[in-house]
């Protein structure tokens, strides 16, 4: 029982550490991270500008903070980075053009999977229905023939 308690304390500690790690440092307002989350880290690619510790993203966050202090809107700030990096800098691809493919691909994939599953299940149930239509007499004869094949067949 005590062991479980320790595991629970450890898990809660980990969860707490995770929460603390995701919080913005006190010198930048949370709005900075909200905007940085929508931008991609130019060096690390897989991370947003909010999560990354790369030098370039530190500067991006600092510039976002400065622009917010100047009274710029979120859209204006994002446009500032798009003007310099193209739409590649957007962490989520735009829902148009080639970016739309990225958004639609999972839906299409799921649709294809559903269609495949439906076809398979329909074929299986049709086979089961066909079997139901076979009379007991026919089944017995088939089994007898199979049995005779087993006995009379060549040794394997």
């Amino acid at each position, binding site marked *: 029982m005590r062991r479980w308690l320790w595991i629970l304390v450890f898990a809660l500690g980990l969860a707490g550490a995770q929460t603390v790690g995701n919080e913005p440092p006190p010198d930048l307002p949370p709005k900075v991270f909200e905007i940085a989350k929508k931008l991609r880290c*130019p*060096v690390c690619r897989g991370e947003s500008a909010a999560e990354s510790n790369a*030098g*370039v993203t530190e*500067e*991006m966050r*600092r*510039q976002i903070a400065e622009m917010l202090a100047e009274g710029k809107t979120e859209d204006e700030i994002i446009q500032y*980075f*798009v*003007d*310099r*990096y*193209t739409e*590649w800098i957007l962490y989520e691809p735009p829902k148009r053009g080639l970016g739309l493919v990225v958004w639609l691909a999972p839906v299409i994939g799921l649709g*294809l999977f559903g269609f495949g599953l439906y*076809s398979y299940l329909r074929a299986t149930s049709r086979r089961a229905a066909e079997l139901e239509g076979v009379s007991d007499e026919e089944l017995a004869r088939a089994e007898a023939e199979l049995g005779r094949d087993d006995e009379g067949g060549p040794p394997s």
Partner: protein
Amino acid sequence: MRAFFGVLLALAIGALFWWGMQTKDERSELPSALAGRPAPTFDLELLPSSREVWGERLNLSDYLGKKPIILNFWASWCYPACYEEAPILEATWRRWKDRVLFVGVNTQDELDAAEKFIEQFGISFPNVYDPRGKVGIDYGMYGVPETFAISVEGRVLERFAGTISAEKLESMIREVLP
């Protein structure tokens, strides 16, 4: 009918793989939003080693429109890429300095380490100090080293990411020469 869909699906997956295989290494091929647009200017302090010849500060707009410019972003912590290209940059600059201006932008670096780098390679073209890396973002830079070719009209013509070779640098210069 099912076979038709199967073939169609296989073709679609094959086409996707083919497209993926055709996509080149994006490090040096990333799109530059600046292509053909006026080069962003900056006014930054020069590294102490550049001051004797070039003065205290360098304002890029003072040089735009006079000569084509090769702008190179680097840092002393960028090893080995920046160390590999530094001798190439210096040798090429010495060959072309009458017709092209080279400007180095030392980005997100320590002053002492940057100076040591300059001394190590005997760099003689002007180098500005940008500890925040602000100019890099203005140029849509992904990471050091990166080199931009600016025409005599002050427009960004080309961007190269990664260690630049002598051949590539020469071809960039030929492109910006009037």
